[in-house]
C-alpha cells in the first residue's frame, strides 16, 4: 500500500511537470494569438482570452500538484536501467503493452490500408491468439485454439461488416 502511494506521488510529480509545461505553452500561444484588430473586433472578444485564462488555471493546479508531490518525496524518481528492466517483467505491464500494440496496429496501421473485413479478421485473430496461445500446451490444444480463433475472427469480421454496411447503412472505414 505504502509502495503504491509512493509510486503515485512519483507519477504526480511527473504529471505536475507536464501540466505546468502544458499550461505555460497554452498561455504563450494565447498571448501570441492574433487579436484580429484589422477586423475591428471588440477587444474583450479576442480569441486568446479564454484559453489564456485556462492556461493560467492549469499552471496553478499543476503547481499545487507539484508542491504536494514534492512534500511527499515524489521527486525521488530513482529511474535506473534495472528498474525499467524489472518493470517489463511484470505480467500486467506486458499485457497492457501487448493490448496497446495490437490495437494501434489495427486502428492506425491496417484501417484505411487494407480492406476492412480483412483488417478486422487479422486483428481479432491476432488478438485472441496472442492472449490465448500457450507454448507449453499440447499441440492438439494449441491447434484447436488457433482454429477456434480463426472461426471467431471470421464471424466477427463478416457480421460487423455486413450489419454496419447493409443494416445500419454506415460507410466502412
Amino acid at each position: 500500500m505504502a509502495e503504491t502511494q509512493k509510486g503515485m506521488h512519483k507519477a504526480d510529480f511527473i504529471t505536475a511537470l507536464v501540466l505546468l509545461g502544458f499550461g505555460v505553452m497554452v498561455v504563450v500561444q494565447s498571448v501570441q494569438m492574433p487579436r484580429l484588430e484589422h477586423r475591428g473586433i471588440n477587444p474583450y472578444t479576442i480569441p486568446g482570452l479564454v484559453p489564456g485564462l485556462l492556461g493560467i488555471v492549469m499552471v496553478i493546479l499543476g503547481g499545487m500538484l507539484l508542491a504536494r508531490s514534492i512534500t511527499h518525496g515524489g521527486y525521488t524518481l530513482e529511474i535506473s536501467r534495472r528498474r525499467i528492466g524489472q518493470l517489463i517483467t511484470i505480467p500486467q505491464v506486458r499485457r497492457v503493452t501487448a493490448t496497446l500494440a495490437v490495437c494501434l496496429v489495427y486502428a492506425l496501421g491496417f484501417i484505411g490500408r487494407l480492406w476492412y473485413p480483412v483488417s478486422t479478421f487479422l486483428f481479432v485473430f491476432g488478438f485472441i491468439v496472442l492472449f490465448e496461445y500457450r507454448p507449453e500446451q499440447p499441440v492438439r490444444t494449441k491447434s484447436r485454439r488457433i482454429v477456434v480463433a480463426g472461426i471467431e475472427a471470421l464471424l466477427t469480421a463478416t457480421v460487423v461488416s455486413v450489419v454496419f454496411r447493409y443494416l445500419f447503412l454506415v460507410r466502412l472505414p
Partner: protein
Amino acid sequence: MSFEGLQMLAIGIGEFLTVRTLFDVLWATQLGIIVGMLPGLTATMGIALMTTLTFRMDPGNAVLILICMYIGSIYGGSRSAILLNIPGTPANAATAVDGHPLAMQGKAGQAIGLATTGSFLGSLIGMIMLAMFTPVIGRFALSFQSFEFFWLAVFGVVISGTLTAPKDPLKGWISGFLGLMIAMVGMEGIHAHVRFTFGNADLSGGIRLIPAMVGAFGFAEVIMMMKHTRVDVVKTEITRVIPRIKEFAKYWKTIIRSGLIGTFVGAIPGVGEDIGAWVSYDFARRSSKEPEKFGQGSIEGLMSAEVGNNAAVGGAIIPVLALAIPGSAPAAVLLAAMFIHGVRPGPLLMIENPQFVYSVVAMFLLATTAMFILGLSMVRTLVKILEVPRTKLMPIVFVLCVIGAFAVESRAFDIVIMVVFGILGYAMQEMDYPVAPMVLGIILGDILDKNLRRALVLTDGDLVPFFTRPISVVLILFILLSLVGKTRWFSRLTTMLKHGILSLVKGRKS
C-alpha cells in the same frame, strides 16, 4: 406537473404505442442490459455506439433507443456486480458490496430479482422527478444571461471534479479544466478563428465528442480489462428471481430516500450514476436499523444502491433537457446525439418544443417497464454471456470502438482521436484522475468561452456584474464551497460553528 403536462405525457405515450416502437424498446433495452452486464462495455460506450447506428433514424425513435440503452445498461451492470463482484458499469460498484456476498450465500437469484426491482423503482422515481422539474428548471433558466452561463460552466467542472474524485478533488479539477482546454481546440464560436490546430485541417472542427468518449470509455476500458487476468463467475444455482413484495416493501423509506438522493446527485452536472449509488448507499447505511449487515449481503444496501443509480439516470437527463448540460457521462453522449438529430435542448426547449420533454418522459416509462420485464426473465440464459472470456470479447469491443468513432462523420481522423483519448483515459484511470469531469469540460468549454466574452462585451470589461447578480452569487458560493469544503481548516471551522451554536442553544435553555 400541470394538467397540460399530463396531456402532453399522454400524447407522448400514445406516439410510441406502435408495434415497431415497442419492438425497438425491447431489443434496445435487452441490448443495453447485455452491454451493462459485460465488464468493459459501459453505458457511455453503449450509447455512443448506438448513436452511430441510429443517426439515420428519425429523432424520436433514435432518442428512444438511446434512452432504452441508457436505462438497460445502468441496470445490466448489477448482474456482473452480483455474480462476478465486478461492476458492469461504474454505476454498479456499490451494488457489488452487498450483491456479491448475497450470491456467495447462494442467493444470487434473489439478489438479481431485488436489484431489478430496485432499478425499476429508482427509474420510476427519476422519471417522476424528470417530468416535474425539467419544465420548472427550464423556465427558470430562461432568466440566465451570459454571466450565469459562465458561472454555471465553472460550477459544473468544479463540482464534478470534487464529487467524482472525493479522495483527491485536485485531480478532479485538473481533469475538468483539461476538458475545458481540449474544447478550445478548433474554430471558436464568435469570430470563427481557428485555435491550437498547428496547421492540421482535421482539427479545425474541434475535438468531436463521440470519438473522444468512445476512446475514453471504450478503448480505455479494453486496456483496463486486458490488464487483469480472468475472473470466474460465481457457480450458484439461480432459483427464485421474482421477489416477494414483503422482501422490499419493508424498506420503502430507504427506497424513496435513495430515489430522491439518486435523482438529485444525478442532476448535478457531470457527477453521474456511480456517485448517486454511493451517496444513496451511504445514507441507507447511516439510517439503517441493521447497519452491521451492510457489506455482508444486506438487502437494504443492495436496494439503496440500485434505486440510487437508476434514479440518477432521470436526474442526469433533467439538466440535459433544461440547460443542455449533462448530469453524467452517458447523458453527455445523449446530449450530443440529440444535437446530431436536430433537437436543441436547453432553456428554449420549453418554449420551442415542450412536447419533446414529455416525449422523453414517455420514452423513460417504456424503457423502465421493458427493463423490469426483461430483467426478471431469461436470467439463466443471460448469465452464460458473462462466461465469455475477455480475450475473445475485448477485440470485438475494440472493433466496435473503431467503427463507432468513424461512423458518424466517416472521418479516419476520428479513429486517431478515439485512440488518443483511449490512451489518455487509461492513463488518467491509472493515476486516479476521474474521466467524467474532462468529458463535461469538453462540452462546457464552448459555453464558458462564448459567455465569458459576451458578458465582458455587455459590461464593457467591468467585472462587477459577474459577482453581484443574484444567481451568479449563489453559483459562486457553491463553487467556493466545493473548492474549500474538503480542506482541514473548513472542517475545523464548521465543527467550531456547530459547537458554538450548540452551546448557545444550551445556554438559552438553561
